[in-house]
C-alpha cells in the first residue's frame, strides 16, 4: 500500500475532524492517500458521509482501542 499522509484528529470534536480532513486532503496529490486518526465516535458516520458527498474514496476504516482510522484516496 502507498504511504499515506497522516492527519492526527484525535481528541477533536464535531465538526473539526472533517474540517481538518477537508483542509488536509488538499495537501495530497490526486489519487494519493490521506490517513486520519480520530476519537470522535460520530466520525464513523461522518467520514462515510463526507466520502459520499465529496467523492474522495474511503478506502479503509477501522477502530483500535477507541482510535478510528480512516484512509481516504483523494479524488
Amino acid at each position, binding site marked *: 500500500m502507498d504511504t499515506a499522509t497522516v492527519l492526527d484528529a484525535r*481528541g477533536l*470534536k464535531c*465538526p473539526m475532524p*472533517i*474540517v481538518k480532513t477537508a483542509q488536509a486532503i488538499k495537501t495530497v496529490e490526486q489519487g494519493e492517500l490521506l490517513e486520519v486518526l480520530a476519537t470522535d465516535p460520530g466520525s464513523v458516520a461522518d467520514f462515510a458521509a463526507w466520502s459520499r*458527498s465529496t467523492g474522495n474514496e474511503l478506502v479503509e476504516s477501522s477502530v483500535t482501542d477507541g482510535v478510528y482510522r480512516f484512509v481516504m484516496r483523494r479524488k
Partner: protein
Amino acid sequence: MTAIAERPTSAETPVPSEFAQALTPSDPATKQLVIIAAHNDLESLWATLILLNTSAATGMRTYVFTTFWGVLPFVRDGVRITGEGWMQKMLAFMQRPGIDHAKLSKMNFMGMGPWMIRRLAKHYNDTLPRELLTTAKEMGVTFYPCQMSMELFGIKAENLMDGFEAPVGATTVLELMTQPNTASLFI
C-alpha cells in the same frame, strides 16, 4: 407614462460589478447551503457555525445571511457600543456584540449559564465559536450582513469582522435559496 420619481440629475454611478453577475453556481450540480442567522443566542450561533464549517468542508458553496440579532456576534473585537443615539447604543449595551459574548436563550443566569457551557465545552474539547468562525472564513464561507438590520442597529460596515461582504437584502438571499441542490435553514 407617469413619472413616479424625479430622475436625479447628477451623474449616475455604475452598480458595483459584483452585483451585476448572477449568483448562479457555475456547475448546477454543486450543492449549496444557505443559512439565515437571525439570533445571537449561543446555541443558535454555535449550530450555525458548525453547519457552515461542515458544509464548506464537504465542498458545498456555503452562505450565511446574518439578520436582526444575528448580526451582533459578528461585530469585530473591541467594538463595544455600536450605533447612533441612545436607543441604538442602549441595544448594544444590553446585548454585548462580538463572537465571545453570546448569551443562552434559557438558563443564562446573568452569564453563569454561558460561562458553564464554555467551561464544559473546553473540558470536552469542543470547538468554540471563535475558532469555528476562523475556519469557516478559511474555507471560503460567504458572509452577508442584512442591510436593514445594519441600519436598524446602527452597525456600520467597518464595525463588522473582516471577511464580510457588502450588505445585501432579502432578494439576494431568496435567489440563492431557490437555486438547485440548495439546503436553506433559518436558525
